[in-house]
Structures are given as C-alpha cells and as structure tokens.
C-alpha cells in the first residue's frame, strides 16, 4: 500500500507512462534513468508476484488434493510396468515368439523365465504379478504361486553335486569371496558382526565377470535381495538358480581355462564341470512342465507377452467389457459383461434422478421465491433440514420406509391400494436408488433454482398478463425461460453428484440399482485392481466432461446461474 501510493505521487502511473512512451520516439526514461518500459515491467512483475503469493496456499492445496490425485489416477489407468519389471529377461526372450504360431515357447524363454521367477519368488513379487495377470486370464495367479515354490528345485541337483565335491563350496562366504571383490567381501564380513543398517552393495570382481558373466548377474540379484531383506550375502545361502546358471556356464566353458580359476572355497572347477556333466538335468522347459503342465499353454505366454509393455490400454478395454487377449481385442464372455451395463445404468438413473429433482424442486423453489419472507424462511429450513442429518441415517431411513414390510407398503396395503400378497418391491433395485437419491440431491436442485427465481422480477408476470397472456402462457413464455439458467445449474450439480454417488446405491440399490462408482469402490478396496478402478474413474471423468461440453453446445454455459 505505502509504496504503491508513493508511486502514484512521484512517478507516472502505468498507463500514462505507456501513452507517453507511445507518443515519443526514443525510449522514455523513469526518474532514475532506467528505461521506463523495464521499470514498468519490474513494477508489474512485483504486483503479479504478490498476487500469486496470495493464492499460493490455495494453489498448493489444489495441486496436492485435486490435480495430483487426478494425474495419479490417469497414470495408474495405463501404467503396467509390473510385467517388464518383474520378468525383464522373459520379456526380451518372448520377443521372438509369436502367439499365433500356437507353439510352446523355446527353451531360451523358459530359461529366462526360470531366472526371473526365481528372483521374483525370493522377493515375493511373483504373487503380485500373478494377481495382476489373473485380471486378464484367470488361473495365472495360482499357476504363479505354485511355480514360485517349484522353481526352487531348479539348480538343486547341481548344488548337491558341488557340495559332494567340496562341502564348503556352496557356503555363502565362499561365494561372496568367489563373486565379489575382496574389499566387498571384507565389508560384508565386518557388517555381519554387528548388522547395523543395510549391508554394503555387491561389487563383483573382474575375474568372475570375465569367466561367469551370467552367474555374476544372478548372484548380484541374490545379493541385492538379501541386502533389501536386511540380511547379507554372508549368511544367506545363494539361490539354487545361481547354481543352475553356474552349472550351465561351467559346461560351456573351456576346460583348459577353468583349471586356472580358483572356484568357491577352492573348488576344483574342472572336476565340478565333469561332475555336473554326469548329472541328468532335464531341460528347463521340462522342469516347468513338471511343476505345472499349464506352462505348455500358449495362452499363458500370450498373456505375459501382451502385457509386457510398460503401458497398456488393457484397463480401459476391461472397462468397456473388452479384453486384450493374446489374439487381439475381443469382447469378454457374455456372463462377465458388466461395465457397459453399469455405465448405461449410471447414466440413465442419474438422468432420471435429475429429472425427478427438477419436477419436485421447481414448484418448491417457486414457492420459496414467491411466498412472504417469513413463510419462505420456514420452508427453507425444511429444505435444508436433510443437510443437517447424516447421509447414512437418511439412507437407512429409506430402507426402513421402502421395505416390503416397511411403512409405505403397510400404508398402501392398509389403504387397500395393493394387496397384501403383492407388496411393491421398492428397495434393493433401481426404484430404491431413484427414490432415495432424488431425496438426497433435491436441495442441490432447489437452491440454485431458488436463487435464480429470486432475481426474476414479479413485474414480468404482471406485464405478460396485462398483455393478454393467460397464467399458463405467462409462466411458460416469460417466467420459465428466465428460470432456465437455474434449472441448468441445478441439473449440472445434481447430475454430476449423482453420477459419482456411491453410499446410497450401495445401501438401497441391491444388484439392479448400483452405479459404476460402486464397482470402482469395489476394485479399490476389495479386488485391489487399482488400474481398472483408475480406468473406470477416468472414463467417468471423461463422460462428465463430455456431457458438460454437450450442455455448453446446446444450452450455453453462460446460461448457468447460481444467483443474481
């Protein structure tokens, strides 16, 4: 305030300055000699900054509570990196495999999968992945769980063979020395003594990397797994899969070179190579088929391949009762189609609720706007009363009223309007949802209608009648058009609230009266399929925006008023 008023006294005001600048040829100078333009720019910038700081808390609040969750929802609805993160090697190996060939993938794919699955199983990631893929193809979840246990067997025979040659050769400390640098081995040993914090990160030694690159890779994954589990490569036995890979690399290695390399705990690698060659190891593919013969099903592999990219439209397809099968996009089985019906029902019921709110709310709003103030105030309290009662209580009250043995049916039977045997089904269906939600959302229709009607001058009606219009014509041609902005505002409010409503349909809707939001809630809290929930939510959001746009095109959004 003080510096602003000082400006006004000593310097030119912004607009006179600009006008002066336009009139003159050279740049105008401010009192202190700087070009006026930049002085002005600085002053305006300061103003803008101050204004921005005033709204900063709100901006921050909205970012955190509104924008960020929506962005997160949009992201979750397409995000799908669990497959490529958990099964990185498999995803690469599957590149060469085609679902359409109808064949079981090659040994390489199974080999890569064995390594991925073994690590995932140790990290307990495989069940999460199983549940994720189970959304797409049922049965995968149990397949993964079972195979996670079975994959431990792969490498066991090789391990036993090495143990027979040298008892210490499979011990953690022997492998730590064999795979890691000396420094690292020392650090791990030191850490092992007091176990403060996490163990040091694995550092492979050059000889191991040169001779057994893949073994180092798997060992590294093992060391990391142990480290994350607040354990260390010093006391956890290396996974069998490490020995499986080690055995393969031994078999492929040049025996002449092997003689020069010291094995774990001084193991003779040439002897080890021979011992392993003597074993009758089945192919990895056979090992998996042994665990579960479903691994021969191209469907399973097709699903993994179909969902291997880090982003997917799968959730959106599911939200439209379509499925991304290995063979392409297909509609899901008839008995599993629910989302289209739910979306349609949500729309139809919300429109019905909006319509009945208009029908019931319009006369009340009219009374409110036209009765003497004192009466209108009492009426207004009655309208607002529901706001002061818990939503749950109101909805439950409807349950009591609408039951087949409830108050309304009792009255109808007592009045002889329906027979005792044919009591009306008013609850746990769409009727129940419409009745209860119309009641709950009615104030949101009445209030904007009222505030718009309040601004309609009563002399319009008088003028219309004096010009010869009957009561009805005066209302329809003059009063009603002027109240349309209120109907618009109320309808948008009620419709948008209704389309996302959840508690009331849940309680009174039964199966025929639930909304898409109930399904979203189910996926968020029960099935934990957040991706699908996010996709459904995003579609709901898009639907609302679309309707809003349509409304704008048809009625015009400036035709929406919440008051004078």
């Amino acid at each position, binding site marked *: 305030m003080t510096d602003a008023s000082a400006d006004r006294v000593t310097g030119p005001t912004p607009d006179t300055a600009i006008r002066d600048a336009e009139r003159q040829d050279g740049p105008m100078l401010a009192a202190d000699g700087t070009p006026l333009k930049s002085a002005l720019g600085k002053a305006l910038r300061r103003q803008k900054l101050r204004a921005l700081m005033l709204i900063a808390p709100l901006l921050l609040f909205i970012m955190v509570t509104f924008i960020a969750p929506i962005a997160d929802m949009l992201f979750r609805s397409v995000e799908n990196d669990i497959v490529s993160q958990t099964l990185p090697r498999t995803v690469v190996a599957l590149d060469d495999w085609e679902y359409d060939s109808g064949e079981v993938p090659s040994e390489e794919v199974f080999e890569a999968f064995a390594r991925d699955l073994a690590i995932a199983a140790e990290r307990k990631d495989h069940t999460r992945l199983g549940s994720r893929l189970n959304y797409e193809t049922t049965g995968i979840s149990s397949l993964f769980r079972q195979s996670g246990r079975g994959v431990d067997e792969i490498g066991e025979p090789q391990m036993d063979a090495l143990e027979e040659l040298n008892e210490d050769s499979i011990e953690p400390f022997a492998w730590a020395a064999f795979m890691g640098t000396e420094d690292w081995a020392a650090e791990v040993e030191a850490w092992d003594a007091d176990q403060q914090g996490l163990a040091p990160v694995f550092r492979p030694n050059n000889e191991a990397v040169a001779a057994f690159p893949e073994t180092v890779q798997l060992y590294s994954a093992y060391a990391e797994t142990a480290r994350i589990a607040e354990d260390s490569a010093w006391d956890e036995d290396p996974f069998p899969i490490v020995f499986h890979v080690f055995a393969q690399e031994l078999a492929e290695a040049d025996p002449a070179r092997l003689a020069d390399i010291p094995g774990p705990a001084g193991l003779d690698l040439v002897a080890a190579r021979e011992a392993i060659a003597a074993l009758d190891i089945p192919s990895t593919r056979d090992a998996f088929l042994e665990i579960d013969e479903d691994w021969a099903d191209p469907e399973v592999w097709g699903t993994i391949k179909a969902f291997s990219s880090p982003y997917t439209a799968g959730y959106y397809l599911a939200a439209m009762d379509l499925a991304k099968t290995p063979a392409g996009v297909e509609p899901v089985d008839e008995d599993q189609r629910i989302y289209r019906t739910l979306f349609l029902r949500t729309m139809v019921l919300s429109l019905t609720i909006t319509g009945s709110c208009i029908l019931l709310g319009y006369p009340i709003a009219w009374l409110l706007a036209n009765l003497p103030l004192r009466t209108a105030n009492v009426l207004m309290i009655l309208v607002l009363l529901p706001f002061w009662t818990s939503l749950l209580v109101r909805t439950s009250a409807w349950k009591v009223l609408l039951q087949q043995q409830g108050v309304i049916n009792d009255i109808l039977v007592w009045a002889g309007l329906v027979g005792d045997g044919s009591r009306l089904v008013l609850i746990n269906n769409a009727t129940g949802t419409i009745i209860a939600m119309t009641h709950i959302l009615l104030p949101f229709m009445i209030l904007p209608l009222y505030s718009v009607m309040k601004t309609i*001058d009563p*002399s*319009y009606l*008088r*003028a*219309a*009648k*004096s*010009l*010869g*219009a*009957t*009561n009805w*014509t*005066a209302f329809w*041609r*003059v009063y009603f*058009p*002027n109240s349309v902005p209120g109907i618009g505002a109320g309808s948008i409010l009620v419709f948008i609230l209704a389309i996302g409503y959840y508690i009331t349909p849940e309680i009174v809707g039964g199966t025929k009266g639930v909304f898409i939001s109930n399904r979203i809630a189910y996926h968020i809290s029960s099935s934990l399929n957040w991706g699908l929930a996010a996709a459904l939510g995003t579609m709901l959001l898009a639907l609302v925006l679309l309707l809003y746009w349509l409304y704008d095109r048809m009625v015009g959004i400036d035709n929406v008023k919440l008051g004078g």
Partner: protein
Amino acid sequence: MAETTNGDAFVAFERVQKSYDGETLVVKDLNLAMPKGEFLTMLGPSGSGKTTCLMMLAGFETATHGEIKLAGKPINNIPPHKRGIGMVFQNYALFPHMTVAENLAFPLEVRGMGKSAREEKIKNALDMVQMGSFGGRRPAQLSGGQQQRIALARALVFEPELVLMDEPLGALDKQLRETLQFEITNLAHELGITVVYVTHDQTEALTMSDRVAVFDDGRIQQLAAPDVLYEAPENSFVAQFIGENNTFEGTVKEIRGETCIVELDGGEVIDAKPVNVGGVGERTKVSIRPERVEYNKDRLQEGAHTLKAEVLEFIYMGDIFRTRLRVAGRDDFVIKTRNAPDQVRLEPGSQIEIGWLPEDCRALDA
C-alpha cells in the same frame, strides 16, 4: 367529478376499499369516474395507495369492497389478461430473453394474430416511439429511456383503450423525463386512449394531465384540472402538496359572505376567503401563494389588513426574485416577484408591510 356522472364513465371506482392485512385500509372509500379519452394522473406521496389503485384496475389486486367498472361493466371478477388494459411499469418489465420485436409481438401472438399483420403492427408501434431500427436488439442493449419507449410501444401495440402507467419515468434523468412526458401526452391524445398515470412528481402531473387526482392517506384529496388544483386547492394538504405556499394557523373571527377574518395565533388579523372552514370560532389553516403577496400598499384594497414583515433574505433567481421574510413570528414566509424593470429589490433588514387580496388567501381545514 363534475364532468361525468358515473353512468357514462369509461372507468369508474365506486366506494372502493382495499386492505392487505385486514387491519388497515390502504385505500379508503375511493370514488372516481373517468370519461373516455381522458388523461388522468394520480399524484400523491409515496405510500398513499396510488399503485394499489392501479393494480386493482389492472386486476392484480382485488378490491376488498366496492366496485370497479370498465365501460360500464363491473370487472371485479375478470382476470387481468381478459381486461385488455395496457400497462407500463416503472422498471419497464421488458422480457429480457426476447428481442424488442419479440417483446412487441408477445401481446399480438397471445391474441392469435397472424405473422404479417403482427409485423405491420410492430413496425408501426416502433415507429411511433421513434425506435424503428431497434427491433433486433435485446432490452439489455438499450438505455433506460429507450427501454421505456419500447415498454410504451408494447403497451400500445395491441391497441388497448385504457393504458395504465405506474411512475414510468421515475428512473430517468430530468431532460429525458421532460421529452418523454411530452411524447406520452402527444401519443395519448393522438391515439385517443384513456390513460391513468401515476406519479409523485407534481410538475409531471400538472403538465401532462387533463385532470389530477391528489392522493393522500388512501383517499382522493382533490380531483381537478391542473389549474384548478393550483389556484383553488380545496384543503390544506393539496395546498401544501401542489406548488409552494405560505401557511398560517389561526381561528376564524368573522365570516362575511365571500370573505372572512382570521386571527392568527400571534394576535395578528388577516383577510381570507373561507373555502373549507366550519364556522366562526373554528381553527383554520390559511394559505397564500408567494406570488400573490403584495407589499406595495397602493395595490391593496381599501381597508385591507396588513402584516408587518422584516426582510431576511433576497435571492435573485433570474426570471423571479425570491424574498424570505419574517412574518407573524415565522421566518419561512416567502414572496416571489417577477423580474421587471420597475421591480423593487428588497434589502435584507428592511421593514415592510405586506397584504393580499382576500380571494388569494384561502382559509382551509386545520
């Protein structure tokens, strides 16, 4: 009231009373008869019941008692839209969602008039108020004066015989008001329509009307032509309300035919014309127009009573001089004199004597 008997009156209020709350009468015993083609103004302070009377005539309020007749037929039970009365409101009441042309078409449409006939009439009505080129605009795009012209055109387009206007110029500035006053009177006379016009502005009432009904306290205090109203107010309210007046309170001493003698409360004695006094010994309010006061002794009648006055203030107003005097203990006595070459300018502080013709000083009800 003298010119028409109720029998052939076009608009007639007979013993009409109106109460909104059942406790107080807003309109008390209203009797009024208007011939066809008359321009009648209801003039009165705010809250005196003018709008209520208009609304009863239009049919938006029902009379609590009494009868309202239009062209000889009682209309108490006819709904507003069947009365065929045009109305102009103070706030124009143009329909905001319709264009000017649509506003004008409205009364014709509800009467089932065909499109071409409608367009013809709308054009004529718009030309009549000099708004011919504004048919496509919305009311919000017009100035207040323009809106009121449109409202006028809308009230006239269906050719009603009676048009009611409730302070139609109240929201406009002075200059515009004067132009429109002139246009409205001209239109009314050209079209031969009967107009009931409500205003609280006496200049408007006096310049526009054939007759003015002065309202106060739910009654017509006086119903007369503007000149009669000004020159011969029948009671002290009208005398006070119309134009400027000097008043004294006193007691009637003597009545002699067309003159009477009134003793003021301060003991002074003056001449007056007994207009509305009970009899000797009754209290009265006498009122005298500032321009009828005489201070040149030569012009007064022989034997006329005079009063001593002290000049307090002299105001030069161009066409007239306005002088404030202290007379009989009051210092708000005003006289007005024409600015003429031989006119004396009274010096403040000087002592003069004033008097008047007995017929210019009216003794009215106390």
